[in-house]
Each structure stands twice: as C-alpha cells, then as structure tokens.
C-alpha cells in the first residue's frame, strides 16, 4: 500500500514539474541602482511591456533617468517578440500577471484592447496630452468614445529616400515639379540605374509606395476629411487618378515588381543599384547599418498635374502608444510614469537615443536628415490614409490596397478596378461619413 502512495506522490511531483516548466517564470524585478535610495515612502515596481526587443538596453538607460527623478518607482522593462506581442499583451492585460504600462499599437489594432476594457482612458489622467497634435492623438483614440487611450510614442513619415552620390553622378537634383521628377527617372533609366526601388511582393508595402508617390494627387488630408464627411468614396476620380499615376510609374520600378520582395528593394537601394526608395522614416537605421557609406537625401514627390493640392505632402502616422492597464495595482505611480512619457524630456530621449520622431511638441533632432524629414512633415502633413482610418475592420484598407496594387502591376486590373477593390472591400464594414 505504501509503495502505491510513493508512486502516486512521485507521479504527482512529475506532473507538477512538467507543468512548472511550461509556466512563465516569475520575472523577479531587479531593483535598479536608484530604487530605494532616497525613497521615503513605499518603493513600487512598475511592469512596462514593449515589442522593441532590439531597444531593451536603450530603454533601460532611458528609464534610469526617470528612476533618478522618482526614487520610489522602479521600472521593470520587458520586451516581447514583435510578432507575438499582440497575443501576449492581450493575455497579459486580461490576466493577473500583466503590465502596469504597456506599449500598445495605434489606430485599428488598438481597438481590441479598448473595447475589451483593458486600458484606461487618459484624457483626465495625463494633462500633458492637451499639448499633442490631433493627428498624433488620432492613433490613440477609442473608435467608439473618442477618448485617448495612450500617450503617443512615435511618429513615422513617408517620403522618397535618394542616393545623393547617384544623383550627383547623373547631374540630378531634387525635383521641383512633376516634370522634373519624370525627367530624372528617365535619365536614371538611360544610365542603367533602376530609378525606384520598389517591391510589390509584400502586400503591406504597396500602399506605402502609393502614398509616398501620389498622396498629393488625391489630396492627402482634404481627401481624408471628405471621406470622413461622406462626400466621396474611394472610387473618386482623384483617387483613381492617383492609382493610375502609380501604374504610370511602374516603368521606373524593377521588372516583375510583384515578384520583388520588400527586402529585395531595400538591398537594391542600399547596394547602389537603385537611386530612390519610396518609404518610411523608419528605414534610416537599416539603410545606414546596411551600407555606412551610403549618402542619403530625402524629398517629397512634387504633385502630378491635376493634383487636388498644389504642393507636395508628406504622409505620416502615429506608431505606437503607451497605454495604462485597467488592472494596474499602482495607478498613481503609473500616472506619474505616463506624465513623464508625455514630457519633453522623454520626447528628446526618443529622438536622441531611439532615433525616432517623437510626437511630443518641441523636440529637436540632432541628425540633419531627421530634422529635414520632420520639418517637411510639419510643413505639409498628410495622413497615411489607409493605415490611419481604414484598419478598424476586416479586411483592412492596407491589405486591400496591397492586393489591388499587385493586380494593377500584374495588369490584371486597371486603376478604376483597383479603386473598386479597395472600395468594395471596405464597404464590408465602412460607410462613407460614418
């Protein structure tokens, strides 16, 4: 009999062991050097989650600054793999072991957390938000109540990168007019250089290219407003014309562009085989790392003839927010942290240490190229339309444009047909004016 009990105990222990191995290890908070020292109240540790595994060291340095000013608060920063983050965060915020403050996505992908009641509205909690630009706050708003659910973390801008050395060799300069732009593409084509490094195999990249090259054609922010007001939809002649312009520029892209991956396009550009790369400000770090000798410039594409606006525009979008967990045990300390994350001090650290655009007003950029992109965006901002307003349902606007653009490049549809694909797809969940 006793042997039986021993056996039972042994197997029970075995089961416990196996299960224990599967459970996430309790993250023992490491009190930083500053924590505790000089703290005359209760020391509190805040769990902060992020998808930026590549920035862990930088963030630890950044939060050291905060901890020094707030000796009673220790920030325990944990990064999860970007591709798994959304799933992990959803579980974390609904369970008990979640973060107090977490990086959350912008626009559509923020909504599941807002609707699930996992985040607290911040309008009254973080007064600094009043200083922020509306376009940045749009990325943090709940779709239904319009409240702000996050402190905007970063902004990305979309423009055309160019290789200044190739431009100089061919006697080219930044284009002032649409004709200039076409002429320089022709010159490059004749010189045997691929003018535009574009890859359309990755669907998500197609709408980025479309907006980088032709946002002025359909009118940028004005068109966004007209859609919001219900005055038009995506079959609008101006939008169709912008897609036609994209098709017209295909001759300056690599052959078989739908077979060219986004990473291929990056390599084309960084290896000097292509002269221009229509893409996001987030490319800078990769470009400079891949080829430190690469001399980079940026410009906005001049408006094509017939454009809805008479000046070039820079599309941009909010990229991530800091959200406050509804389940936090330390709401006061978390608010202190969020106020700091909305402060010019943190904004400047985002610019200097993380090399990102901070939406905090008044931040300066040491890198002249970064400052130039930011100034261009401030002068004539436009929304990265399909990402900003059209990711609140299924299918998303960016996915639809990805498919429509691929069909357009393959010759399976024309510009009007591509616009129809976007409009028909979106009509599953979106009505103009709502």
């Amino acid at each position: 009999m006793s042997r039986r009990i021993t056996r039972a105990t042994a197997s029970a222990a075995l089961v416990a062991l196996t299960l224990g191995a599967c459970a996430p290890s309790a993250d023992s908070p490491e009190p930083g050097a500053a924590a505790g020292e000089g703290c005359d109240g209760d020391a509190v540790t805040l769990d902060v989650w992020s998808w930026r595994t590549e920035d862990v060291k930088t963030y630890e340095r950044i939060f050291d600054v905060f901890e020094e000013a707030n000796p009673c608060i220790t920030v325990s920063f944990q990064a999860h793999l970007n591709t798994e983050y959304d799933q992990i965060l959803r579980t974390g915020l609904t369970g008990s072991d979640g973060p107090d403050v977490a990086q959350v996505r912008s626009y559509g992908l923020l909504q599941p957390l807002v609707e699930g009641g996992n985040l607290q509205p911040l309008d009254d909690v973080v007064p600094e938000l009043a200083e922020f630009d509306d376009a940045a706050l749009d990325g943090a708003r709940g779709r239904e109540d319009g409240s702000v659910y996050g402190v905007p973390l970063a902004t990305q801008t979309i423009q055309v990168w160019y290789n200044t050395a190739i431009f100089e060799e061919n006697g080219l300069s930044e284009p002032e007019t649409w004709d200039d732009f076409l002429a320089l593409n022709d010159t490059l084509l004749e010189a045997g250089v691929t003018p535009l490094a574009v890859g359309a195999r990755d669907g998500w990249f197609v709408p980025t290219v479309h907006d980088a090259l032709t946002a002025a054609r359909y009118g940028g922010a004005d068109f966004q407003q007209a859609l919001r007001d219900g005055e038009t939809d995506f079959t609008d002649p101006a939008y169709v014309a912008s897609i036609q312009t994209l098709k017209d520029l295909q001759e300056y892209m690599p052959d078989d562009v739908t077979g060219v991956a986004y990473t291929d396009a990056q390599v084309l550009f960084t290896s000097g085989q292509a002269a221009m790369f229509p893409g996001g400000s987030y490319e800078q770090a990769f470009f400079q790392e891949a080829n430190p000798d690469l001399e980079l410039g940026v410009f906005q594409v001049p408006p094509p003839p017939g454009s809805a606006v008479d000046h070039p525009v820079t599309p941009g979008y909010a990229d991530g927010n800091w959200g406050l967990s509804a389940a936090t045990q330390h709401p006061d300390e978390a608010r202190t942290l969020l106020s700091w994350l909305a402060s010019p001090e943190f904004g400047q650290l985002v610019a200097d240490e993380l090399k990102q655009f901070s939406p905090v007003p008044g931040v300066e950029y040491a890198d002249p190229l970064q400052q130039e992109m930011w100034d261009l965006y401030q002068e004539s901002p436009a929304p990265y339309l399909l990402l900003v307003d059209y990711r609140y349902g299924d299918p998303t606007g960016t996915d639809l444009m990805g498919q429509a653009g691929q069909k357009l490049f393959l010759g399976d549809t024309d510009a009007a047909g591509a616009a129809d694909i976007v409009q028909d797809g979106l009509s599953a969940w979106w009505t103009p004016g709502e």
Partner: protein
Amino acid sequence: MSRRRTAALPTPVALLFLLPAAVLFGVFVLYPMATALTYSLFSWRGTAQEAFVGLDNFVALFTTEPYRTELPRAFGHNALLFGGAMVAQNSVGLLLAVLLHQRERFRRLFQVLFTMPYLVSPLVVGYLWSLLLSPLFGPVNALLRAVGLDAVAQPWLGDPDTALWVVVLVTAWQWVGFPLLVYGAALGALDPSTQEAAMLDGAGAAQRFWHVTLPLLTPVIGTVSVLTFIFSMEAFPIPYALGGSSGSPAGATDVMSLLFYRTAFRSGASNAIGVSSAVAIVLFLVIVGVSVAFTRWFRGVERRLT
C-alpha cells in the same frame, strides 16, 4: 489468435504513467479546442466576451464579405496543396523509397540527405526559397538564364499562376523525407518471399511493383495520405514566408491558416475573436470529417485487397 492481455504493467500503474501525458494533452490540446468552440459561439468586443449568439459567427463566415469569397478561395488552395503534395511529395517519396530499397550502399546516406530539410524550421525554409527565387538576386533564375533557358525564368512568387505551385514544391522539398522514411520502413518489413514467389512465376520488375509491392503497401499509403491531408490543411509557415499574411500575389497563396491569422490578429474588427474562432472550428471539422471518412473508405479498400 487474439491475446488481449498484453500489458506488462497492472492497469493502475499503467494509468499512473499515462497521467502526465494525459494532463498535458488535456491542458494544451483539449482545453484550447473546447475554448475555441465556445469562443466561436459568442460575440466579442475586443477581448471582452459578450452575448451568446449561437451560430451567428458561422453564418457571418458564409454570408458576409470578405469571408464569403476568401473562405472558399483559401479552402480551394488548401485542397490544391493536398493534391500537389500527393503528386510532388508522396509519389516522389515512394519512388525514392523503392529505389533506395533496391540498393544496399549509400542507402542510409541518401535517407539522411533527403530527410535533412525536415530538420529545418519551415519558416526558415520558406524564407530561404523566397531568396533563391527572387527575380533580382535569386540564383534560380540566374541559373536558368545562364544555361539559355531565359524563357523559363519567371517571377516565380510574383505571378499568381505559379506562386501556389511554388508553395507546393517548396513544401514537397522539405517534407519528401517523411514519405521516404515511412515507405522505406514498410518496404523493409515486407516478406521477401512474396517477391521471390512472383519472380518464380515470371513477373517482371514493374509487374512485381504494381501487383505485389503496391497492394501490400496500401495500409501505409492510407496513413501517409491522411497525414498529408492534415498537414496540407494546416499549412501556415511556408505560405506565410512565401506570400505574407495576405497570400501575395493578390491572394494567390492564401490558405485557411492565413485567413485565420489575418482575422484573429491583423484586423481591427470588433468581433475578431468570434469570427476567427469560427474559422478555426470550420477548419477543424473539415480535417476531422474528411480524415475519418477517408480512413473508413480506405479500410474498405484494404479489406478488398487482402
């Protein structure tokens, strides 16, 4: 004939040893499956479960866009993946297994070589092939052009007519070792006297294969086919690596798992969890239903042959 009591251990002890695996299976397989089923019967607001809606999510799946068009398209692509795998993976695997069975030398070496890609993560295999097939830098097209086959060089993954077959071939490249090993083992277990008897009766090599070896392999072919069907229905990493989450180009490589992934994690739709769970349940029912039906039918075929 039947010797039912084969257990080496008394039943309680055997159960005790089965317990850990059973608990793990319950926690990590049965429980998630049951939750997915319940999830699909509710409406959701983000991560918050709302009202019980019965089969509404399933109705939405079959009647509203984009699912009404994407679901059959994705399912069709899965079916093509299965058909392609039967030809490009299992038939080739059987052929290789027979060829290797006939030779002693290097058999192990070739078995290891053919099975090797199997050990690499399918995501890695997918990305590797997407690099090899790049129209700009890929060695595949460079090689074709170098030997004068310019007309054959294609934007393999950029053309909707070829992209899905690339997925089939890359999958076959990775998994051909599986039928090879299973068929190899089955061939080794066949009684050589049947071959000898056929030879004495004057049967040629082809006749022996068609009329002796193949019928004897039927049970194994059935098992391999069912497993291939399940793998093909669940295909995710290779299509994802080759065509991204939207099945580029223009949805030509979209499959059920990608549709599930997009619906669950890439959409901003409020009821994403409800609808995506319904997708998962439909996929599960198709796999179980077809697998059971196929196994039943195949048992009948076996009985007629033996």
